[in-house]
Each structure stands twice: as C-alpha cells, then as structure tokens.
C-alpha cells in the first residue's frame, strides 16, 4: 500500500555571492524552506554555477563546473536558487552547454528541470509569510529573473504578506542595472551610468528600502546609492520574508 507522499527533498544552491558576501541570504532561504515543510539539503561540493566562465567564452571551463554541480545535486527533487542569474545559468544554459553530448545532455536536462528560483518555489509551496518590516521598498527585477526564469510576480506576492511593508515598482523596471557580471568592472564607466539611472529611479519612488532577488544587482545598486550618500537600506527579499534579525546590517552597512 503506497505510503503518504513524502515531502520533496530540496537542495539549496547557495551561489558564490551569497556564500562569500551575504550568507544571511542563504540562512534566510533555509528558514523559509523549513517553513514550507520540505526536507532540505545543502550539498557541499558546490562553489559556483560557472557563469563567469560561460559568459566569457570558456565553454570547457563552464562544462567542467557544470558537471560538478549536476553530480552534487543528483539525488534531490528540486534545486532552489536565491538568484535569478545563477538560476538562469543552471536552468537554461546547462542544457545548452551539453547539447549533443549523449551522456551529459540528458543529465543536464533532468537537472535543469529541477531548478527553481526561491520565490517561485516558496509561492508554489504556499508559504505563509509571517514577518514584519515597517518601510517602503522599491523592488528591482533582475534581467535574468524577468527574461530567463519568468520571475516577476512571485516575490511581489510573497512580500505582500510582510506586515508594514509597502512595495513600489520602478518606472524603468525592464532596464538593466548595469551589473552584468564582469561587465561592471570591464566597462566601469558604462556600468556606472546605468546604475546611476537605476539609483535615480529607486530614489524617485520615495522608498527607504531596496529589494531584489539577485545579489549582483543588489551590490551594484547599493554601491551606487551609498556613494551618493543615500540611506536607502538594501536587502535580498528573502531576508525580509524570513524575518530580519535586527542585528543584521543591510548590504553595505557597517555592523553594529
């Protein structure tokens, strides 16, 4: 007789930026996954999704990293990613990288099918948001979230459950913030112009907080806002959903 369906086994793809820069996003993700009642795992053999190699034309390097990731995440039901950009790499570009490879193409496709962005997954699992944050937040959509993963409404719907929070859209929500991975250092002047426009858009909403689902964008826009002396507080949206630790500084803020 079949047992009651077991909870899905969900692995967290931490991402290199969360790992190095802001682990609190990773731990917030784990708290949220627990809240929706899935079994979680964090495979140790993960470092990076390989996007820096892929975007700079090193397909072999990207494939080597991808094989490592696919192997490490083999025995799970879903792979949850707190990043549109890494999520896009895993979900769309891994199958492309192995197109035509009789062994790895099916593995990559099977893996890609499991990949889901954090907010999309939490909404799908019916997360009941129990958090509070008094403030007005501008929400920035990363290009990968919008165009590679179709993530736009999901984080907004979840954030609607945060008590005290008002979320405002940016006027030019479709426009890139200028991060673009290595682009932001290789073409720093152009990147600075793009992020200045984005920062102006954020300030024009009157928000005191900025939220997004991608650390690259967040570091970029926070860096520009802070260079301009703005006091807008910048967080990954997962941090608000999971309940902010009052001791936790916002991105770029000094620790108390």
């Amino acid at each position, binding site marked *: 007789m079949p047992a009651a369906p077991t909870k899905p086994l969900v692995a967290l793809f*931490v991402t290199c930026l969360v*790992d*190095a*820069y*802001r*682990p*609190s996003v*990773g*731990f917030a993700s*784990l708290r949220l996954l*627990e809240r929706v009642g899935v079994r979680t795992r*964090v495979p*140790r053999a993960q*470092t*990076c999704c390989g996007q*820096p*190699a*892929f*975007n*700079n*034309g*090193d*397909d072999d*390097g990207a494939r*080597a*990293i991808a094989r*490592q990731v696919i192997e490490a995440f083999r025995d799970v039901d879903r792979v949850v990613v707190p990043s549109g950009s890494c999520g896009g790499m895993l979900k769309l570009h891994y199958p*492309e990288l192995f197109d035509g490879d009789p062994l790895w193409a099916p593995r990559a496709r099977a893996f890609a099918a499991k990949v889901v962005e954090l907010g999309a997954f939490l909404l799908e699992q019916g997360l009941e948001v129990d958090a509070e944050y008094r403030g007005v937040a501008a929400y920035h959509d990363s*290009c990968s979230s919008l*165009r*590679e993963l179709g993530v736009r409404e999901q984080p907004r719907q979840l954030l609607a459950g945060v008590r005290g929070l008002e979320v405002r859209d940016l006027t030019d929500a479709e*426009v*890139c913030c*200028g991060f*673009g991975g290595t*682009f*932001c*250092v*290789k*073409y*720093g*002047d*152009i*990147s*600075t*112009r*793009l*992020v200045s426009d984005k920062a102006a858009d954020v300030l024009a909403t009157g928000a005191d907080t900025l939220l997004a689902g991608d650390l690259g964008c967040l*570091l*970029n826009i*926070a*860096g*520009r806002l*802070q*260079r301009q002396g703005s006091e807008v507080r910048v967080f990954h949206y997962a941090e608000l959903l999971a309940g902010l630790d009052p001791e936790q*500084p916002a*991105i*770029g803020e*000094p*620790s108390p």
Partner: protein
Amino acid sequence: MSLPGLTPRKFKIQAQAALADPVLRGALGRARSGFVDKRARAVAAVPEFEALRDEARDLKRHALARLDSLLERYEAEVTAAGGHVHWAETAEDACRLIVDLCARAGARKIAKGKSMAGEEVALNAALEGAGFEVIETDLGEYIIQLADEPPSHIIAPAVHKTREQIAHLFRQHHADLDEDLTEIPDLVNEARRVLRQQFLSADVGITGANLLIADTGSHVLVTNEGNGDLSSTCPRVHIVIAGIEKVVPDFAAAATVLRVLARSATGQAITSYTSVFSGPRRADDLDGPEAFHVVLLDNGRSDMLGSEFREMLRCIRCGACLNHCPVYTAVGGHAYGAVYPGPMGSVLTPLQWGLREAGDLPNACTLNGRCATVCPVRIPLPDLLRRLRSRAHRDALDGARNRRLLAAWVWLARRPGWYRRLSGLGVRVLRWLGRGKGRVSRLPLAAGWTGGRDLPLPEGRTFFEQYRKGRRA
C-alpha cells in the same frame, strides 16, 4: 573626439567620450523614450503580435533554407521585366560594379536613398572617389553627410544631433541660407527645398531594399519621407544594392515582415510609403527609370549561412534592439566605431570584420537580453554574442590577463576544498580592509567598480564556514 578615427577596437575610449557628452546624452534620452514608447503602443494594439513574430522568424528560416533557389528565381524575374542583376562577393566588388554602372550611364550626379548596405560597403566614398557628386536624400543621412559623420543608428542616422547642430550645418552648407533656423518645421522645409532640386537633376538614383520578392522579381522600399521613391523614379537609372538575405518567396511573406518591421522600428502600423518595385519603366509608363539594376551583396553572408551565426541573417534592420539596449542608449552609435552598432552590430561587425578587429563589441554587453525580447524575428542575440565570446576565447583573442584570471577562477571553482580555504581567507581580508565600515570606496584591482560606486563588504564568514560549524538557520 575625432570622428574619422572611429574603430571598434577603441570602443572603450569612444564610449567614455560619449558618456561625457551632455548634448549626446540629451539626444539619446529623447530617442530612447520615443522609440521604446512608440513600439510598445504599436505592439499593444496588435493582439496577434507574438504570433506574427513567430511567423516572421519561421518565414525567414524557410527563406534562408532555400536561399539559392529564391535568389535564382528573383534574378530570372527581374531580368524578364527588363532589369539587370549583378552579384557582388565583397564590398569592393559592389562598389566597383556600381561605379561602373554610373560611369556607363554617363552620370554626374547621384541621388541616394538610405541604404545600410551602401554604408556597409562604403559606397559614397567609392562614388565620390570616382568623381561623382553624391547627394543623400534621406533627411537624417543628408544631415550626417553635411557633418561628414557616419550614421549613429540604423534607421535614424542623425539621432545624435540636436536641432541647433542641424541648423548650424544648414547655415554652413546652404549657399543661399543666411540665418539659423531654429524651428523644426523650418529645418525640414529647408531640406525639402534644397533636396527637391537634387532629385530632379540627378542622373542616377541609388537605394537599398528592405525586402526582395522572388516570385515577381520585386523589391520593397519602406520610408516615410518619400525620398526613396523619388530617388527610384526621377533619375533615368535606378540602382538597388541589397544583401542576399533580404529575399522572401512572395508578397504574403513580405506582408508579414512588413507588419512587424514598421511597428518594431518606429511604432507605426505601416510607413507613409511602402512601395513595391518590379523592374524599369514600361513602354507606356509616363515616368520611371529607363534602366534598372540590382546589386546583390554577399560580403560574408553566405559564410554566415553555414555557420553557428546563421540566425543573424534573419535581421530585417528595424533597430529595435538598439533602442532597447542599455549600452547603446547610453553611449550612442559612434562609440561602436562600426557601420552597424548596438546588439545587431555587435554580432555582425565581428563576423564581417573579424574578431581581432571587432572583438570588444560582443563584450560590451551585460547579456540582459532585452534586445531579444523585442527582435521581430526572434534572433537570440545574447546567445550569438556569447558564441562570439567563445570564439574569441578559443582563438586566444580575449587578452592574457583576462584568460589567467578566468582560468584561476575555474581551477578554484572545481576544487571545493581549495575554494573554501581561499574564499574564507579572502572575505576575512576584505572585511578587515573595510575596518568595520561595511563598505570601501577604493580597492586595488577594482577601479572599474569603485570609480563610481562604493563596494559593500562581505559579512566576514562564508556561508559554508558557518554551515560547517552547525548553523542551519
């Protein structure tokens, strides 16, 4: 900035100069909002627009898969109608053919309708070099001809110019004009007045073609000004230069392309003049050219057909990708230093001029993908740009320092043990550099970032370090 020196190799410097130009910034801002909003409204008015994009893509795929038979049919029909078809393998061949045709026609003055293929082969320089007087009749092209500049946009060549700059050019070059016209209607009327005489006195008219229609030997010209039609009809000889990839089987195919072209380019359902030409003047026509020639241009297109960049041949030169590109709308077309700027130019230029010459262009892109969302024929531009980066990497054209850094990153990423140790160390060092401030305003090796931004600092202990020590929430 000296314009004659523009090359793709100097993109970064040219871009910096563009960013520092407040007049250009204003002009580009105007263009960006204009084009984007107009396209959005036009598309919203057509519920089946996405289906039209699919059909346009598939029609182009279908046509490219039969390119040879379509071109042969086109040639046969043009010839049967009394026209002549010439085949140019290279830019030089195209120029030589056209110069010969003009010489044999005993021409002195040539009226040109806008042609990007003509820009591509540097046709004006060849014609002027051979002693012909060449007058651009499209207002935007006329303006940049007076300014001796290349076009900065593929459908709005003078988008970077303000009315004051245009008034100054007219004042400089129009002999019987002795005031600065400040109002736009006056500027346009002045151009109309001057160029009217040119159409009527030109011996040869040269235009491009937006489409070639195989089953009737026709070509389609899409304009708003009427200059293309006048250049095609008034002079006694009409020469068309068109890329071989422009051919479609029949009018129904052309109709679908036209439906997505004008909306994507200018936000119009159709332009003021969409004209379908089939050969020279007929025996009983009262007007029209006596002789009609088509120069079919290869210039790397047949090579692209057999390559992983074949999809680029679908391009219908609408300019939507430029208008929606954050990089193009920040730096303008001249920064690219090439005939075709923006996303489509960043794919075409390396393919036509080589990666050594144009390898920077595919890198000057954030891969944000907005271009692909607006391309009427669904060209996967970010994928093509990435493939060019792969080629550059494979051929070691991407710079030794970049390759070393990238190789180091890949090496490290493949070894989680080493990665943990070094990243743990790295974030501690960065944290220490900030001395508790949470961010730094300067960092060695990161000047590209810190020039305009502070750099937020890491929390100080990596996720995996904490996870390994038992933290789970």
